């Protein structure tokens, strides 16, 4: 049985979390396989909530599956698809089913996804959702009404250390801390010098920081992310390293890069842990951890 994530966070151990992407459809085979593969190798697994605004099996369904299979889940909740009633209701439900960790996100914009004509809700934002969790823990809902049975969550948020411009993102980070975030999982980082500078700032706050590690599978993917994904910067040296890998070995090189980064972050105690995102290649996460020596 997995240990409670909050305990792990506060144990001083180097924390490893990973990410599970639910399927588009009802075939859960691959997702369950990934859960079984990772549940004993990582401290907790996030389940994404219609990532990139693409409609999928819900994150609540994913975290329940993790729970049933003995893993420790982190429920990702975005504010894009539900108003404050629905978000609160889901937090109540999740709590009754043993879910104790929630990652509060604003959510991607609707037009970047696959239901471009949908109404983006954004009744709340990430900081307001964090405070909603704390409000429900106090035994009251957002309307100020008493709850018959309250909740208790370890609540986290995200931050983008490579945001451009960076300062507004740091101010938002501080606001999320003030709103009750206990841990942060960052957007992918690849430049450790930039990340160290971010940590010089983040260390001032009593929160745990898990560095986001997205597996690079090709030089093309790295370039694509640089050009298209907000808040991600892959240094040229890494792109060159991937490009120089012999044909058919780019994935191996990506695993090596991710593992190497994790090892360095851990050895140099740059932050409190890592959040590994393999985006569809979850089966190689154990290999990444092997390279990292974990």
């Amino acid at each position, binding site marked *: 049985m997995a240990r409670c994530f909050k305990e792990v966070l506060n144990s001083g151990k180097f924390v490893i979390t990973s990410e599970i992407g639910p399927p588009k459809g009802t075939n859960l085979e691959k997702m369950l396989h990934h859960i079984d593969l990772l549940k004993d190798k990582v401290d907790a697994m996030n389940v994404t909530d219609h990532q990139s605004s693409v409609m999928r099996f819900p994150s609540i369904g994913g975290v329940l599956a993790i729970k049933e299979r003995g893993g420790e889940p982190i429920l990702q909740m975005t504010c894009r698809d539900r108003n404050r009633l629905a978000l609160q209701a889901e937090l109540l439900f999740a709590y009754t089913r043993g879910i104790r960790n929630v990652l509060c996100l604003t959510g991607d*914009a609707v037009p*970047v996804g696959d239901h471009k004509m949908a109404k*983006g809700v954004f*009744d*709340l*934002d990430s900081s*307001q959702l964090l*405070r909603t969790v704390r409000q429900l823990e106090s035994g009251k809902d957002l309307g100020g009404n008493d709850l018959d049975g309250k909740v208790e969550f370890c609540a986290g948020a995200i931050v983008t250390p490579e945001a451009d411009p960076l300062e*507004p993102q740091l101010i938002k980070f501080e606001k999320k801390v003030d709103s009750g975030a206990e841990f942060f999982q960052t957007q992918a980082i690849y430049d450790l010098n930039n990340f160290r500078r971010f940590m010089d700032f983040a260390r001032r706050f009593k929160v745990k920081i898990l560095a986001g590690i997205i597996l690079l599978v090709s030089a093309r993917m790295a370039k694509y992310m640089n050009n298209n994904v907000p*808040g991600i910067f892959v240094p040229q040296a890494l792109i060159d390293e991937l490009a120089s890998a012999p044909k058919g070995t780019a994935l191996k090189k990506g695993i090596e890069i991710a593992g190497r980064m994790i090892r360095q972050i851990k050895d140099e105690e740059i932050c409190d842990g890592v959040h590994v995102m393999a985006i569809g290649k979850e089966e190689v996460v154990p290999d990444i951890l092997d390279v990292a020596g974990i």
Partner: protein
Amino acid sequence: MIRTITKRKPFEEVEKLLEDVERVFIIGCGTCTTMCHTGGQPEVQEMEEKLRQKGKVVTGWMVIPVACDELTHEALEEHGDAIEAAQALLIMTCAFGVQTVSAHLKKVVLPAVDTLFIGLESGLGMFSEVCNQCGECILGDTGGICPVTACHKGLVNGPCGGTKKGKCEIDPDKDCAWTLIYERLKQQGKLEKMLKYYPPKNFQVEPKPGKIFIPEEEGGEQ
């Protein structure tokens, strides 16, 4: 000047609206749709020509100076016979104009334009939304730039993670509202305002549909 921004419906959609209509009267507006080139005199005449070519009988047309104004009633009376002869009115004003005409006449009204937002012409042919009338103005804390309108998600507590080089994740040509607010507040030496927490918005400031009585002696102050 702030105005209602509209765009023309595709002509095929207009044709569909007029499927069962033989005789039609066209109404444009001398204000907002004239300035947006969606329902001024040239567009009304172009529509008349197109409909004639499609075999419709255009009983007449007019461009009301300000279609949402109360004088619209008098303006419509001047064309009483031609309007009477039509089975439906094709209206090339914003939706406010369509509703004003509909309130005065018992005729079938068919909109030929879509009303998009309240905004201004920020460049030649470029129209931008400026206020979505949320009822809780926070411009005093945001350097005079409205995140409720200018941020795609309407976020009031700072930027999301979708900013790329100061642009929005939905459009590389769209400025991130929170980058603009940050720059303005920084220049004003008021960056601490970005740390202010805004609780969830009150969407019932004025329950939809908006209707409010403002006594003259109070000037609406509450």
